[in-house]
């Protein structure tokens, strides 16, 4: 199981700024290891963020997103104390969901 995401959600003037830092190798499938064998691709394919059961952002990613991916977006309506959940799923079917409280 991958390490937890770091999620920061800050509410200002009715808009919530969300910054997410995920922990993932994001292996491209192009790289070779020391013995010349191709390291199989292993990367996050989909990400979604929800607030009060509503999806506020969803994304599909390829292996070109950097290792330990960063994502930033803003949505309207969230208040201090509300929870936001972020889920990712990778190409091997692993998934992880983390929750943060809006500040």
């Amino acid at each position: 199981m991958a390490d937890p995401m770091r999620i920061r959600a800050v509410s200002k003037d009715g808009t919530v700024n969300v910054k997410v830092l995920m922990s993932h190798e994001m292996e491209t499938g192009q790289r070779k290891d020391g013995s010349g064998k191709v390291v199989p691709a292993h990367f996050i394919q989909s990400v979604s963020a929800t607030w009060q059961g509503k999806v506020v952002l969803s994304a599909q990613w390829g292996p070109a997103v950097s290792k330990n991916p960063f994502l930033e977006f803003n949505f309207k309506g969230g208040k201090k104390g509300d929870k936001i959940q972020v889920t990712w799923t990778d190409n091997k079917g692993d998934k992880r969901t983390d929750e943060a409280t809006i500040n």
Partner: protein
Amino acid sequence: MNHTRRNVLRAGSGAGLMVLLATAGFIMPGAAVAADWNKAAFEGKTVSEAFKALGAGTPPNSADIIMRAPDIAENGAVVPVGIESKIPGTESIALLIEKNPSPLAAAFDIPAGTETAVATRVKMLETSNVYALVKANGKYFVAKKEIKVTLGGCGG
């Protein structure tokens, strides 16, 4: 004609539909989007292949798409790119890197209530044009910017 239109709808709005279903509680959001991963678009080897798989055809340029990215990236493994669309009705934003083995790096679906701007970090193999593809009210627009890479980031 109908066939093309269907492809466009499927490629462009599939995730949007999934989001609706997920919102309504029919399916788990994570699983929904994963099932919808646009393999053809992500595995396209050229920008035009990826555009085609996304249903975008040959989109016109737009000055209302703003890319926030460095002119020169010292480390191709971590290139920060922000894209903002000022086009009304923006539904999705995709990021493509022309000279990567597969240009499409990321595609974001922007539901109503979410600002039409996203930022992330991507890998770049070498100096390349970077495209921001925006879908607004069912139409596609594009903007491009060249980012020079001092040290490539795709070979590891």
